[in-house]
Each structure stands twice: as structure tokens, then as C-alpha cells.
């Protein structure tokens, strides 16, 4: 049985997430967006890494959360924590509805259907510009801060907020992974044919996992909305779905920390490469991906684990 207790390395890791406050205070805005992306990747990991659902349309839930949070701030109130809850619920409802279709499929059809629904939603948001602001982005709202802390240019409150939400969601995800339900998800990933033969309602499990992942993705989107006071179609775009998939695979799927490590490495690398070379940084990111697959197969965490095992 996998041990559900926190390992020493995990304490060290989470302690390190506080370092940006002290060491790189001018990078806190970046850090907050890394935390949001990490949370988004974590939600994808729940379905991809643990239940084997490859999705190229996960931004649908991220964007749903982002727009819900934005619309609430614009039309009703700007207190973020309650907005976060509503955003989570709306993304979860969307996830639950789509799950009835999505989980019936596997392989390429699954990937393409998730992509198709994602693109349809993005197009719908573009068309409904009266509601969403269309290509100009949702305008006319400002989230001043959370619990009395102001979301300012330096990004202290933004990072604290994003990090706190990431950590809480991580605890929930970790709890799920180490629960009977988490074991069932791993069972589905390992062998979907066997599961019904041991009495497992596979589709019900997958629907539930998909809904939970949608909720967390929606929370990530809402945090982005709150910390930046912007929402745009980009939150729903194919590009964001593809990016988060790349980030999760880069970090290593099915390892809980893979999405977080992937988000840190991808976004910091992107920031540094594009700082040095704003026009051609794609080249270096491409090289990074190629090198990781060559030297650290199964993502950075997977590769490192294999390297550590080898000498023994």
C-alpha cells in the first residue's frame, strides 16, 4: 500500500514555494501565474495521470471558472473567495454534463471529442460577445483584493492567494489519490477491461473523476481572473488546453507533483528564454521538450525516478 503520509521531501518542496517572497520578490506575479498553471495541470493529472483520460479540451473548465468569476465580479460582488466557490460549481456542472459523453470513449476519439467540445465552447464564448466581451475580453470589473490584502503590482497578495488555493487543492487531490476512489482510478488506468469484472462501475468512477477535475480546473481559472482582473477568450483556447497537456507530460503524469514541477519548469524557462530572445524563444522551448523526452522519458519526475532506480 502506498503510504499516505507526507514525506520529508514534500515538506521541503512546499517550504520552498515560500521562497519567492524572500528571494525573488520581483517575480511574484510570475510565481502566481505559475501556481495557477500548476493547479490547472494538477486537475488534468487527476484524469490523465490517474484515470487515463487524455484531454485536449481541458481549458473548457478553466475558462468556465475564469468567466464565471469575472461575471460575478462584474455584475454582483468582488469578494473572491465566494466567487471562487461559484466558479468551482459552474465548472463542475459543465464537467458533470460533458462527462456523460466523454467517458464512454477511449483513444483518439476521446482526445478529439474533448478537443471538439473545448473548441465549441470557445467559439460560443466568442459569439456571445454581449455576455463575455468577445475577443476584447471581459471588461468593466476589478477585483481589489482578498481578505483585505490588495492585489497590487508587486503580486504579493496574488501569489499568496494562488499558492494557498494550490496547496489546499493539492491536499484534496492527494487525499483523493490515497482514498479507495483513487485506487479505483488507478485500477481503471492500469486495466479498464478488468475493472467491471471486479464489480467496478467504471463509467461512474470516470464521471466522478472528470467532474472533480473540472471543479479544480474551474478554481484555477477563477484564481487567474481574481489575481489579474482580466478574462479573455484565451482562457478557453485550444492553445491553453495543449499547453497544460505539454506541461503535465513534461513534469510527469500520474505523480501528483508532475504538473506542479512541469508548470514551474515550463513557465520559468519560457520567461527566461523569451526575455533573452523574445522572437525565437520557441526554438529553445522546443529543444527543452525534445531533450526531456530523450533523456528523461515519462516526464521529468518519471525520468528522475528511473535514473535513481538504475544504479541499484
Amino acid at each position, binding site marked *: 500500500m502506498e503510504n499516505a503520509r507526507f514525506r520529508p521531501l514534500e515538506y521541503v518542496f512546499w517550504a520552498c514555494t515560500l521562497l519567492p517572497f524572500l528571494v525573488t520578490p520581483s517575480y511574484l506575479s510570475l510565481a502566481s501565474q505559475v501556481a495557477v498553471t500548476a493547479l490547472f495541470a494538477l486537475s488534468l493529472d487527476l484524469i490523465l495521470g490517474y484515470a487515463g483520460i487524455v484531454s485536449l479540451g481541458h481549458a473548457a473548465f478553466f475558462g468556465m471558472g475564469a468567466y464565471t468569476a469575472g461575471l460575478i465580479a462584474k455584475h454582483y460582488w468582488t469578494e473572491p473567495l465566494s466567487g471562487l466557490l461559484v466558479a468551482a460549481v459552474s465548472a463542475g456542472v459543465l464537467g458533470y454534463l460533458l462527462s456523460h459523453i466523454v467517458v464512454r470513449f477511449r483513444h483518439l476519439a476521446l482526445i478529439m471529442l474533448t478537443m471538439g467540445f473545448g473548441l465549441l465552447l470557445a467559439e460560443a464564448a466568442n459569439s456571445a460577445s454581449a455576455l463575455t466581451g468577445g475577443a476584447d475580453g471581459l471588461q468593466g470589473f476589478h477585483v481589489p483584493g482578498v481578505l483585505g490584502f490588495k492585489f497590487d503590482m508587486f503580486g504579493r497578495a496574488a501569489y499568496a492567494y494562488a499558492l494557498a488555493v494550490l496547496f489546499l487543492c493539492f491536499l484534496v487531490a492527494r487525499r483523493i489519490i490515497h*482514498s479507495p476512489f483513487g485506487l479505483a482510478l488507478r485500477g481503471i488506468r492500469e486495466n479498464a477491461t478488468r475493472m467491471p469484472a471486479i464489480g467496478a462501475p467504471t463509467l461512474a468512477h470516470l464521471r466522478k473523476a472528470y467532474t472533480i477535475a473540472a471543479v479544480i480546473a474551474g478554481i484555477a481559472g477563477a484564481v487567474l481572473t481574481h489575481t489579474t482582473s482580466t478574462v479573455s477568450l484565451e482562457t478557453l483556447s485550444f492553445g491553453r488546453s495543449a499547453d497544460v497537456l505539454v506541461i503535465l507530460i513534461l513534469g510527469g503524469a500520474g505523480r501528483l507533483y508532475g504538473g506542479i514541477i512541469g508548470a514551474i519548469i515550463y513557465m520559468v524557462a519560457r520567461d527566461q528564454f523569451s526575455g533573452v530572445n523574445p522572437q525565437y524563444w520557441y526554438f529553445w522551448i522546443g529543444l527543452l521538450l525534445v531533450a526531456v523526452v530523450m533523456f528523461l522519458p515519462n516526464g521529468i519526475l518519471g525520468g528522475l525516478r528511473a535514473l535513481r532506480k538504475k544504479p541499484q
Partner: protein
Amino acid sequence: MALELPKGARYALIGPNGAGKTTLINLLTGMLAADSGTILLDGADITSLKPYQRVHRGLARTFQINTLFPRLTALESVTLAVLERDGHAHNWWRGLAAHRQAIDEAAGILRSLNIPDRETAELAYGQQRLLEIALALATRPRVLLLDEPGAGVPRDESAALFSAIESLSGELTILFIEHDMNVVFRFASRIIVMVGGRILLEGSPDEVGRDPRVREVYLGGHARAA
């Protein structure tokens, strides 16, 4: 075709390759949809039930080719089956460790079949065949369908395997597919012979052994060779 399995029976299902033995198991367990006909379990119609629902009614199976969870440990695999049986696998909030009973029960099943708790992919082949059975047993079946449990197991190990099967509760109805006639005649109380998708004959080992049609279609080769 009509087929009835009385409680506690040890049935062997034999027939040449392509006779439809595995297909029969897939139909009974619902993994293939039946075009027509009914399947009753203890008098209740389970024809329209989904595969996992049939398992909950007490109909379990194993697979001819290992269909296991390679990167779960043996204990995790069997615990999962126990949890699914009791409906605890929906629980996503309490830790696994809180389900002590399920883990203990799974460990008991592994002990009884002499399966070490290692990652499934690292188990020896024979142990993996036993794990197939352990997974099915963990669902507490009333009827157990074993699809060539001894497939690929060396002869000396297969005897141990079938001894383990034989020692299972007498309440349990077992139907197994097997090609090794020694094993079939030693362990089965009844034998069903399938040919070309139909049941040719059902009877006691003696009756089947004597039947000329069986000798013709199935044992023919052996008879001539002998």
C-alpha cells in the same frame, strides 16, 4: 442452447478451439451483449444488467490471458476488488488505511493462495494466474467462471493451482474452461462439451468419456494417437 449450473457444482467446459467457450463466458458475464435469450442467476433475470452489476449479484470470472493491474501491488489489486464489492470504492475522502477490514480480508485471500505482495508486473507468471483467481474470489462470487486458469502454467504447477481451486468453498459454483483432459477428468464433477457454438453434450466425466460423438469431434485425435 440451454445450460443450468446447480449450486456447488464443479463444471468443466471443453471443446475444440473456436467452439465458443470464451464467447459463452463473455455472454454470461455481459461483456458481450446477447442478441436473444435470458440469463438467470438464482432465478433472477440478469440479462439486462451491466457486467459490473452481474458481479455484484455474485457472478465473477477470470481471464484466459492475464488481465491484471500491472503497476498495482497484489494487495492493492485485491483490496480494490474487496472495496468495489462493498461499495466503498466511491469513497474519495477517507484514506485507504481507514479501510482496515478490506485490507485484512485481501491479505487473507492472498495468503490462502500463497501470493506474495509485490507489484503485479513483478510476480511470477504462475502467481499472476493465481492473482486472477484471487481478484475474482474477492468479489465473493456465488458462481465463478474460470477461463483456462491453467493456461501457460507448467504441468507441475497447474496441479497446485487446481488444488487451490478445489479447496474453494463448496457453496461456490465453478465453471472452468480447460484443455488438459487429465485436469478436467480429475477436478470436474460435470463436463460440458461445446462444438461450433453449440452444446454437444453435458454429463458426468464417465458419460462424456464414453460418448462416441465426443471421441469423434474432440478426443478423436487423442484416441487415434493412443
